[in-house]
């Protein structure tokens, strides 16, 4: 097997902004003193006049982005997920969500894979927070290919979008030449009959790995990539749940309010089946290398496999 290419989705975000910036004059990028880390620095280098550094003032950055959107620009406002969704939550809710302005929030360093910086910077709550805002679209790309496609789709879509990117390099998995990204449409990556694994973000590759191992044990797992958690592809989810009768959710996010929450809320109404939520188990993170943390918190292929096979017994 040839070596799998790995790239962090924040890097994909910066690259996609440059690509888009070349063809879209109304695209502007905002940052709050983290251009090097969020990778909007790549855009800044190419288009210095369209890169706005707001300083360490995430709330103000969101307000400025709202003003830019209200006057015809398409702003991508970037910071770490913790600050973009957490510190600036109320500005995002009242000055972007309520007026339904065309602001794209590029949130990087989401989840526990932030690594060494530890719990203060590991945002495991952003999907939950952003999902509660009426009219907000929430997208969590699983790899480089999907991140690029998501940035392009977010630009074309009229309305607020929250894009969640990671700090650490993740394998490129969406190599299918027929790969097509559509906001709100889940992608079946592997068909199965015994259990559905609904995954998002970096857990998608782990879910595929787990499905492979489960298959060796005689368990047929269906793997669906829900890159959009809001609006959730309820039709695809319900059809799969009906077929398999069991659903596992896997995400680099709290089991409270993220994909797991969205799946339970949806299925309880239209297709109630047992659901196992794999994610951060309602705890804060800690310092350590990203890979070690992903393994410790059971979000890699081995972790997902272990939990699913124990649950299936």
């Amino acid at each position, binding site marked *: 097997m040839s070596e799998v290419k790995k790239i962090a989705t924040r890097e994909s975000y910066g690259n996609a902004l440059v690509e888009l910036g070349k063809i879209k004059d109304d695209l*502007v990028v905002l940052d709050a003193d983290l251009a090097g880390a969020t990778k909007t620095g790549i855009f800044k280098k190419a288009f210095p*006049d*369209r890169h*706005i550094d*707001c*300083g360490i*003032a995430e*709330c*103000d950055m*969101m*307000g*400025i*982005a*709202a*003003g*830019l*959107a*209200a*006057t*015809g*620009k398409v702003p991508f406002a970037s910071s770490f997920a913790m600050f973009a969704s957490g510190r600036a939550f*109320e*500005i995002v809710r*009242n*000055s972007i969500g*309520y*007026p*339904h302005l065309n602001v794209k929030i590029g949130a990087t360093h989401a989840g526990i894979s932030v690594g060494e910086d530890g719990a203060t910077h590991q945002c495991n709550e952003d999907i939950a927070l952003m999902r509660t805002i009426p009219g907000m679209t929430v997208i969590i790309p699983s790899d480089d290919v999907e991140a690029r496609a998501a940035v392009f789709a977010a630009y074309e879509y009229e309305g607020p979008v929250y894009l969640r990117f990671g700090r650490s390099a993740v394998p490129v998995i969406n190599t299918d030449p027929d790969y097509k990204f559509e906001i709100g449409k889940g992608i079946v990556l592997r068909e199965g009959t015994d259990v559905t694994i609904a995954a998002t973000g970096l857990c998608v590759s782990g879910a595929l790995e787990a499905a492979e191992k489960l298959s060796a044990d005689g368990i047929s797992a269906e793997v669906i990539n829900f890159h959009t958690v809001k609006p959730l592809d309820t039709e695809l989810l319900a059809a799969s749940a009906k077929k398999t009768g069991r659903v596992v959710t896997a995400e680099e996010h709290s089991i409270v309010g993220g994909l797991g929450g969205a799946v339970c809320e949806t299925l309880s109404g239209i297709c109630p089946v047992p659901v196992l939520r794999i994610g951060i188990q309602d705890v804060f993170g800690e310092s350590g290398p990203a890979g070690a943390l992903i393994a410790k918190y059971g979000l890699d292929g081995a972790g997902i496999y272990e939990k699913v096979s124990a649950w299936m017994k």
Partner: protein
Amino acid sequence: MNILELQKMANEVRKGIVTATHSAKSGHPGGSLSAAEVFTYLYFEEMNIDPARPDDPDRDRFVLSKGHTAPGYYSALAHRGYFPVEDLVTLRHVGSHLQGHPCRQHTPGVDMSSGSLGQGISVAVGMALSGKMSGKDYRVYTLLGDGEIQEGLVWEAAMFAGHRKLDNLCVIVDNNGLQIDGSVADVCSPYPIDKKFEAFNFHVINVADGNDMEQIAAAFAEARTIKGMPTAIIMKTVKGKGVSFMENQASWHGSAPNDEQYAVAMADLEKVGEALCQK
């Protein structure tokens, strides 16, 4: 409009504030009345706007950062012709386009939703920056309360506006001296307001009587001449201005007149109107 016509219009705007809050049985008359002259001057004299083309990309923009004074804003917009004055009695009623705080999707002429304090100035800064980036010459105005400037976000926005030399931005502070819990000086003093904005690289204009139309006109004329930095106009006003029993009373920040009080308030304003007609 000449000064007398503007004064008469401000009095009509006040009647709309009293009528709307009376009908709503809630709302914020005090800070709406203190800013009646500013609302009137902006919409009838200062701003390049046309009610027939509320989406004109080249129009001047206004963001009511102190969004709770929507009754004053709505009254000015209605009298300016964005929607019928009769709509004012629907304020805060179920199904009305006049929400308790401004909403851009609901109300014709409203450039930005607001109400959560501190956010409006930040959005106005974004609009001003956008104009500069696009080479447009529209101006952006935003009205803040003096209590509102206790919000930290106001100063994040001010720092950015000063840094970017946004001379198309005009920040107005309605310094009526009162907030919900009492005097701004007692609760958590924002003074000196002028020196704070100066320190954030604003050109500051102090208006001794922000309910005096001539002083307001002079301040906005001066603001237009300022290049290379944003302007902050600090207006000393009277909360509840024009309604005898509401003047300088913090208790009228967020409560509405009952039927009896409504009659007294409207009689007060009728008297002012008659006096202006004698001029």
